[in-house]
């Protein structure tokens, strides 16, 4: 018997406009000014990593670069900081995509947590090389929140692709 995907569901093909819409909504969520409250996840990184894992052929480093530039401006940070981190995140997530999807969702979250932490580390190195202050250990909390949100986000973003529950006897599959 062939091994099946951990989700054990056959999904409908994704719609392109839905990917664009979710990335845009994530950008909007990131614009909400929470100030220095620790533990607020980076929504763009979360959704970007999700699509890079699930649709590595459609969403990739180019999307990460463009979103990163947008974040750099609205975040009042240095140009290229988020772009660099998101590009590396997209590369790593797309590389992991063939492996991660075989695991149950909780273990998937454990797989993406190092990606988020690495992304924050890249940002920190990029800024501290130029003499910025250390943002504090609590800043890394947002990676853990993002990993915790992997489970609900997966259900939310895959919802349009789930097949209807009612059984159609004439359907071939």
């Amino acid at each position, binding site marked *: 018997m062939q091994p099946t995907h951990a989700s054990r569901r056959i999904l409908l093909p994704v719609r392109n406009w839905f990917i664009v819409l979710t990335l845009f909504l994530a*950008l*909007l*969520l*990131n*614009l*909400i*000014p*929470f*100030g*220095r409250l620790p533990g607020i996840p980076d929504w763009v990184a979360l959704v970007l990593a999700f699509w890079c894992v699930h649709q590595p*052929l459609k969403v*990739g*480093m*180019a999307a*990460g*670069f463009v979103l*990163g*530039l*947008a974040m750099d*401006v*609205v*975040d*009042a*940070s*240095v*140009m*290229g*900081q988020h*772009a*660099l981190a998101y*590009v*590396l995140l997209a*590369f790593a997530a*797309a*590389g992991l995509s063939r492996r991660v999807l075989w695991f149950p969702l909780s273990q998937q979250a454990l797989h993406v947590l190092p990606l988020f932490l690495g992304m924050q580390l890249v940002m*920190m190195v*990029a*800024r*501290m090389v*130029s*003499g*910025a*202050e*250390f*943002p*504090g250990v609590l*800043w890394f909390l947002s990676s853990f929140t993002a990993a915790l949100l992997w489970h609900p986000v997966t259900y939310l973003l895959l919802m349009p692709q789930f097949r209807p529950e009612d059984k159609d006897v004439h359907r071939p599959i």
Partner: protein
Amino acid sequence: MSVVGHAPPPFFKRGPAPLVRLVFFVSLSLILLIADLRFHTLEWVRLAVATVAWPLQRITWMPIDAAGDVGAYLVRQSTLLKENEELRRRQLGTANLLLRQQHLEQENMRLRALLDMRARLPVEGRIAEILYAARDPFSRRVIIDKGMQHGIGAGQAVVDDVGIIGQVVRVFPLTAEVLLLTDKDQAIPVEVQRNGLRAILAGAGAGMMELRFLAANAEVQIGDILVTSGLDGVYLPGLPVAKVVKIDRDSAYSFARITCAPLAGVERHGLALVLGARTALPPQPADAPSTADEPGRGKRAKKKARQ
């Protein structure tokens, strides 16, 4: 397998290999980083994107604004009464000073005219609201709700009711970015109010500031108030800035380590006043070839001032 001169037919066109794309985008990002950090050449890109993103930002503030409104609506009456009382008491306390200030300003102007000094510039200010702290965790910046359209320019000082908060560093059409005093990149020339000792105060992060390059035996005490010296031509002289909270005189170092806390509510939100730009100072006399003799110049200047 590719034989020389023969590439295998591409079944699936996927563009360049992931590694190639990664190198391309990473180098592009690094170029951007260096261009922005070293040469500050990307301000126009930032301005364009920020202008486009402005309506979106406005939309995303709605939930926060709504939460604030609900919170304000639910403030208890007793709290309001107490606050009212407190404000009235404070107003009475300062009325005395306010009443005398006009008189003092007049007198000051006359004395300055007598001394044939340049009259102090009349300061006009513009009240702005601090909208939110920038999300960037590596620097201390806040966004205010006045921008180019309201005549704000980069370099203007921002104060609150107690003292200086920071300086406008970037201006967008409807907003402006203020770099707070506690940011590591921010420095401000100050003098000790008690004895007029001049120094440079720089941000140290974590809400504190540091008095730099003062000799280990410099005459500074805990509790000293630091005010702007006005030497830079950006800040008006005499505005309160910070208070000395800790002095570490270690003879192993040639400089004392002096930690200061800001007087104004630097990390607090509320209303702020953006002071008008000061006109440029007269051109400096011919520059000394090196900076090595700066302390000497300082001393002479001090002597002159005493005479």
